[in-house]
Every structure is written in structure tokens, then in C-alpha cells.
């Protein structure tokens, strides 16, 4: 980035000690020393930050409605480097979402309040 631009430095969030897809409807994430926190498939699908989901065309295709987690399912999960997990969703077969541990932590925090 040029000197006139700025970017937010991501808060460092440790890698979870365990990430588990539960029944396809939620992601259960555990950080060391903390209680497991779950994020529903519905919230994760809505939170996808990929370019397609944030484009006008993507929003027109998927936006405007939140579907129940028993309609949206997490069908796959893969670690991305040491900072994120990539999730696959059905029924729209969306596979390009990368969820950083920082984003997962933010989505999960209210689960432990």
C-alpha cells in the first residue's frame, strides 16, 4: 500500500485449539483455556467476506435474507495457513469463504457472554 493509504492492523488472535463442525449446522471453536463457542451456519454464511459475496451480483444472489441453519449447512472445513479456516456451504455450494481466527473470535464472543 502507498504511504498515503492506511490499513487496519488485525488484532492477533491465537489459533484455536479445536475447530469442529457440529451436525453441519454450527462451527464449535475452542481456544485454549476458554469454553467452546459456537457460531451458527446462518451467521457464518452471512458473514462471508469473500469478493463474490460482497459484490453487487453476489448480494443480489444471496443477500436480503438469513436462512435457518438447518437450511444452510457447513459441508467442509479446511485450515488456511496458520490464520484462518475455509468453509464450504450447502445448498449454494459456496466454497470461497475464508474466516480468519480474528473474525471467528468476534463472531463467537457473544456465545460465551
Amino acid at each position, binding site marked *: 500500500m502507498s504511504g498515503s493509504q492506511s490499513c*487496519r492492523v488485525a488484532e492477533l488472535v491465537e489459533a484455536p485449539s479445536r475447530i469442529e463442525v457440529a451436525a453441519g449446522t454450527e462451527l464449535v471453536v475452542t481456544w485454549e483455556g476458554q469454553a467452546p*463457542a*459456537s457460531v*451458527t451456519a*446462518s*451467521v457464518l454464511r*452471512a*458473514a462471508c*467476506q469473500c469478493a463474490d459475496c*460482497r459484490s*453487487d451480483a453476489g*448480494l*443480489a444472489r444471496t*443477500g*436480503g*435474507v*438469513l*436462512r*435457518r*441453519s438447518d437450511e444452510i449447512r457447513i459441508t467442509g472445513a479446511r485450515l488456511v495457513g496458520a490464520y484462518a479456516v475455509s468453509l464450504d456451504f450447502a445448498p449454494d455450494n459456496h466454497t470461497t469463504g475464508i474466516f480468519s481466527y480474528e*473474525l471467528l*473470535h*468476534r*463472531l463467537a*464472543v*457473544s*456465545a*460465551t*457472554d
Partner: protein
Amino acid sequence: MARTLRIQWEAGQKVTARLVVPRPAKPMGILLAHGAGAGQDHPWMVAMRDLLAGEGFTTMTFNYAYTEAGRRAPDRAPKLLHVHRAAADRLAGYTDEVVLAGKSMGGRMASHLVGDDGWQARALVYLGYPLVPVGKSEPRSADHLRRIVQPQLFVSGTRDRLGPSDLIGPLAAELSGATHLPIPDGDHSLRVPKRAAKSNDAVLVDIAASINVWLSELPGR
């Protein structure tokens, strides 16, 4: 059918509220605050109130004091919050938990009621959060939103100039427990043009159903 209530917010000072109790009703109630430009009896407010009640939520709207008095200019924030708090307290007497929802200014006041005053809402729903003040280009401070520990749902139109999706989306991603629901082609009132894929009525139906989904899947329930 809405019941009309009178809410005392200060000695000798009352505003009107409308309460819809569906049968059966969920234990969670929704307080829907109106925006700056129109009161609780505006057709948009009545439609959203009845749609939320149709989803099973005891739903209440109310007038701020300036609306009740027939004035157009909104009161200053402390007075808005005073009335908002009284309405929230009243609904809390009817339901186990209260979700604070609001259109534009009403949502912003709800966020201050929780973020600044610590009112114990179950969650917050913003229908067009006015992040950028009218006539301004710089967004307002969002510091109080960062103090809110409850889940927050930002519903925003992709054509909303007061709550641009390219600002609301990253803000929601930055906040703990926040979700952004972008409404394709929606303006600040979540209205869509005639060329849009859905009608305005269909959009409001989808928003109410989405709020139900989001609330029903809140953690800890």
C-alpha cells in the same frame, strides 16, 4: 390488533405506544423505535411491527416526545433516550427478554441506550443504521457500538447513503457478535426500486423472517 398504551417518561409527560401480542407469543419481545422523519403510525412502521408480531414476537412501537407533540425536529439525544428507556422498561414488564430494534435514528438511540447506559437488551437490530449523518461525508463515531456485548444485527440497503454497505459490512465484521444483512438495491428505508427482483412488501417480509431466524439462533438459547 394493536393495543394503545400511554407511557409516562417523566412526571406528567406521556407518549403513546402500540403493543401487539401474538398468540402464541415467544418469550422475547421487540421494541421497534421509529426514525427521525416519521412516527410509529407511519405505514412502514406499522407494517414492520405487524410482520414481527406475525413471527411470534410481542412487538411494541412508541412515539418519541417530539413526535407525540407533533413537532418535526427531533429532540436532543438525552430526551430521546429518556423516552426510549421508559418504553423499553415498559416492554420488559411484559416479556422475559427485550430486543431493541429501530429504524435509522431509533436504532441509533437503541445502541446508545445499551452501549452508553448499559440497558440490558437481549440483542439489537438496526434497520438502516445512520452511520453517516445527513449532509455529512464522515461517519459518526462507532465507539459505543464497540462497548456493546450483546449480538447486533445490521440490516442495511446497498443503496443506503446514510449507512453505506461498504462501511456497515466492515464495521459489523469488526464488532463482536455482529451480523450484517445487506438488502440488495435497498435504500435507507430498505425500499427497493421497481426494477428490483423483489417488491417492497416482499423485502419487508424477508427482513422480518430473517430477524426471526437470527434471534432464534442467538447463542445461549
